[in-house]
């Protein structure tokens, strides 16, 4: 099951990434990136990180990509040049995919990297929200608090940059 999820998620992530890099318009790039993020969520699930898999979909594929799409929709049209005459970058990028697939498939024989699977014995409840939350509110409490300041900075920054043209109601 985990092997199947790995190949499915890995293919989604890699193909989504290459297609994103190679796509002409920003909208299709964003859609391919969503596929890539979904693949990454599948990989998280395969790696016994169900909490992160859900958050990856909610935060990344949900919030962040919606933000991207929202901006693209506002800017799309005459604004975005179709990068005409750009070099054939998708050839090196595309070559990476078969190379990566071959590498992954033959990884067992990469010298020196003796390739056991993952260890079978994980602590009970590994990757469940409870355990992650205990770490967040214990050992990593300071980092957790710091994140809130980072988000405050982002909010104030976005407001400060956005308030140029017209005055905000509270100004």
């Amino acid at each position, binding site marked *: 099951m985990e092997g199947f999820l790995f190949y499915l998620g890995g293919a989604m992530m890699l193909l989504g990434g290459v297609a994103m890099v190679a796509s002409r318009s920003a909208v299709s790039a964003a859609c391919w990136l969503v596929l890539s993020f979904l693949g990454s969520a599948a990989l998280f699930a395969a790696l016994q990180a169900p909490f992160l898999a859900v958050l990856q979909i909610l935060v990344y594929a949900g919030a962040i990509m919606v933000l991207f799409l929202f901006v693209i929709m506002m800017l799309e049209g005459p604004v975005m040049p179709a990068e005409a005459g750009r070099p054939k970058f998708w050839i090196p990028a595309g070559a990476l995919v078969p190379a990566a697939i071959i590498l992954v498939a033959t990884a067992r024989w990469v010298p020196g990297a003796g390739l056991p699977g993952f260890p079978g014995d994980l602590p009970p409840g590994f990757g469940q929200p409870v355990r992650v939350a205990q770490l967040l509110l214990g050992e990593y409490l300071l980092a957790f608090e710091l994140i809130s*300041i980072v988000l405050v900075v982002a909010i104030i*920054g976005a407001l400060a940059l956005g308030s140029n043209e017209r*005055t905000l109601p509270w100004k």
Partner: protein
Amino acid sequence: MLPDLAGLRGGAAILPELVLTGTVFAVLVLDLALRRSARRGRVLLLVTCLGLAAAATAIAGVSAGAQPLFYGMLVADGFALFVKGVVIAAAVVGAILAALSPEIRRDQLGEYLILLVCLTLGMCLLAGARNLLMLYLALELVSLPSYILAGFRHGDRRSSEAALKYVVFGAAASGLMLFGFSLLYGLAGTLDLPGIGAAVVARGLQGGLDAQLLVVVAVLLSLAGFAYKVAAVPFHMWCPDVYEGAPTPFVAFLSVAPKAAGFAALLRFFLSGFGAPLGFPAPGEFPWPFVLGVLAMATMTVGNLAAITQDNVKRLLAYSSIAHAGYLLMAVAVGSPLAIRGVLLYLPIYLLMNMGAFLVVMAVHDATGSETVDGFRGLGARAPYLAVVMAVFLFSLTGIPPLAGFIGKFFLFAAALQTKSMFFYAVAVVGVVNSVISLYYYARIVRACFLEKPADAQAPVRVGSPAAALLGALAVPTLVLGIWWGPLLGVVEKALLLPR
């Protein structure tokens, strides 16, 4: 079930950070509450400066110790406290500069100050971070406000473009660094910097070729993030554009404080992560001092050579700050106790002279609207005070003897020579040659001030009394420290006294 909270003791040691956080929210609330008041700008500046002063006082009250705090997230040793002092001093000057500058719109001063204090908070945490997660978050807390503040010059296309360039390449650099961090985490099995150091050294000695290669890749990728922050070659390209486009009061701050905090973090990453002092490589280890030394040589040479041809003074100072990053990188490569002392001594001196030079640029720009070297022509006659202090700052940046810059450079070069290795002799020689080159372009501005006549008869350049006082406060120590550096050295040595 509540997790064990015993490791959270040590709140007293982060009192400066707590004060800074309090200041952020005080300014935020006051900014909203006083929105109709005519004195809003002055009140906000006053509160910010009081908050920063309180944080500086709190630093003096923290008892330095090498014991890890908050489950090993932070450490409040003398090294960290000293760097925190430097960045808070830079923040005070930066806040006053913003209030003096017409480039920051009055109704946005509050947001500017909030972001400035957040940035300062990030730098304080960066100086003390001893865990990869903390290091990453603190670095982002430094970067994100920097991106915004670089775009704060409204109605100016260059400012937004500079900000965009900064954020796009900055995000890519932090992506590189994050990938490096993820590999380091996996290789060491911990996010703790000293733990990573021990594991990396062990891997380097006994691991197979692939493990060693992975370590090298991981550290190189991590290095990319730091190189971007301190504007070292090959990640320096953003620097001239951002310096030219961003508002001058912010550039003055950006050129000093984040660089200081970045070097502090880089030193801790290499020294606490890889065992101090870095000698020349033992067999089986990767020659990091060599890599850093080459980067240092490249950084100073690129910075100085590019500075020669610049006409815009802000761009010129940008390249000069790249060159100074090169001198500091040389000391990081050496990594000996003398080198660390040299870096710590250099940071406050660099603060004085570089912020001073930018303050003069700001004053000249506000009076004449010019940011080019030609704008400085005849400044000696039009504003003798400005011209004289500018000469002091520029000669100090060059490192000419009776000025503070000489003392700073002296310790950096002494550390390189003390290694008695041919390679560092070569690095030091490159550094000296570079200092000579830098004399050329610094002197060009001084010559424009005193020897050239302005193109047309122009009115005298007026400086407001707050700006004049601030210039004096920066110039006098630049002069005094060049002759009487004992007390500063004493503070540095006291800061390094405790084992790290």
